[in-house]
């Protein structure tokens, strides 16, 4: 399973590298009038990335397929953390720092623990958000978005 995930990652990286190289080639000729153009270096880097990707894919395909333990439990908590951060950023300005951060911290505490003692966790979230606000806004002079402007 791990090997499959790794190969998928390498294929995605290869696709990105090819896309990068194609974009670099579209910038024009790498050498013009005896000097290097802005396309030269990206073409070099894109080519090298494709080479390294190809080596790694061949290595991964040649390697004996690894099978993980049958009872291996796959955790997707990291995906939920990414989702939480994404929506937090979306809500940051419209909802303001306090509401968006409160919900975000509460969600993360739940993701890293169990669905129990919710009131205590809500209080801890509020305290964290308040302390962080004082630290950013009062101590370091950073203006954070709030509902009151």
């Amino acid at each position, binding site marked *: 399973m791990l090997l499959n995930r790794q190969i998928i990652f390498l294929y995605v990286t290869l696709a990105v590298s090819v896309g*990068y190289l194609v974009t670099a080639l579209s910038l024009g000729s790498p050498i013009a009038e005896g000097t290097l153009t802005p396309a030269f270096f990206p073409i070099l880097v894109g080519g*090298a990335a494709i080479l*390294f990707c190809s080596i790694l894919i061949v290595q991964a395909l040649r390697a004996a397929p690894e099978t993980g333990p049958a009872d291996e439990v796959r955790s997707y908590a990291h995906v939920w953390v990414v989702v939480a951060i994404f929506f937090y950023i979306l809500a940051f300005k419209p909802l303001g720092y306090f509401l968006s951060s409160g919900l975000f*911290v509460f969600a993360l505490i739940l993701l*890293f623990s169990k669905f129990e003692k919710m009131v205590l966790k809500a209080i801890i979230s509020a305290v964290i958000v308040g302390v*962080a606000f004082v630290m950013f806004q009062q101590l370091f002079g950073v203006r954070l978005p709030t509902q009151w402007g």
Partner: protein
Amino acid sequence: MDFIFLVFSSFSLLADPVNFTYVVLGFVIGTIFAAIPGLTATLAMALLLPLTYSLSVETALMACASIYMAGMCGGSITAITINIPGAPSSMMTALDGYPMQQQGKGALALGHAALGSMIGGAVGAVLLIALAPFVAQLSLLVKTTGKFSLLAFALIVVVIAQRGRIPQAGLAACIGLMLATVGLDAMEPITRFTYGYSSLTAGIDLMPVIIGTFAIAEVLTQASARTDISAAAAAADNVKIRRRDFLPPLSDIRKIGFGCYFKSCLIGYFVGTLPGAGGSMGSFLAYTETVRTSDEPETFGKGNPKGIAASESANNAVCGGAMVPMLTFGIPGDPITAIMLGVLVINGIQPGPQLMADQAGLIAPMLAALLFSALVLIPLTLWLIGPYFIRIVSVRKDVLYAVIALLAVVGSYVATYSTFQMFMALGMGVLAFYLRRNGFPVITMLLGYILGPNLEEFLRRSLALSNGDPTTFFTNPDSLFFVGLTLVFVYFLVIRKPAKTPAVV
């Protein structure tokens, strides 16, 4: 000599309450982060990076120096007491520290670790203060072609230092270089790889790259792994440490010997000057050298304080060494110096050969703070809060990672007051998470990103100056020197197949 006086006169800045508070606070935060398994001082510095906007450059750099020093010695606390190194650089310390703990001599092992860290940190800082001005003078001799060869040397060494995963390191470096090419070209008014997004015209900012790579990726890794530290927390609860046991007896120090401390310091310092090597490599080499030259090698791994002294002296001496290429050439030796470089860049200071000559006044306080941290804060922290530090392991992980995530995301907003940077930090975090998960060293990506713009610029300038003749890299003495040096490293690290060493970062 002027620079040495400048550094020593900078100690007066520590009398300023603001500077003193940040240096002490930085040291305590660095120690806490280094002591908690899974967290590192690099993460602490990444989280605190946005705050440097509101500090003076001197204060920010002084705080960075104390975090760096704390990060190297803080990991030994859990390495010795519960056999879980808080930081990779303390891996070798656990080999002899934990057996001492099992023999009821845990506090003594912590004392030896602190003494080794103190000596290593101080020797590294003194060597840095003494040698950096000379290296800076030498670096002025390096011209455009030499600069390209030097940067290429740094990048190649970082890649080939990742034994057993060189293609992964090469690909990670390429990804970093790709990120570096986004935005306006350095020499011609052409935008590249912006795909119509005007926010990308100025390129990808350093802040979200660092926060994403070290903070958000760490939160994702912890969420994915869900490391169960309940056993470690329970073990920590059973550890009893008394202050009076910290002091290593003179007979122990004599048995370890001045030679062992000094040799380990030199190994750590010179390993530190190599790009990408870092504290774990330094302590590993010093430890193996100490075992090799010992009259009683069979006692190592069973609680020999000499092993702790060698490991801790070396990893703290790395701090001084790693700053040499960062200050003189703008090449960071490890992730922490990469973030320090970020502090300089954020404040509009260009690291490189001219830095030591033109802005020595900004750098000197940082070196004073490094020496102060080694000589004063390491023993003082151990004495004052050493008996309680082990309780750090028991901290609630759900609250801890929620706080880290909040500081990371809001911190990336601080730079431009734009949510775009927050999304960039998230994107970089996801990228770094998947790179780490698949065995790619993120330090090579970071170095590719940091060195990329200069690498390209010097390549194009060199070839423009030589009318497109690539032999210019072999005919200019400064460039030829670095080409030769690269070949030497390739020979020793790739062709000669040396003994297996721990993977770096």
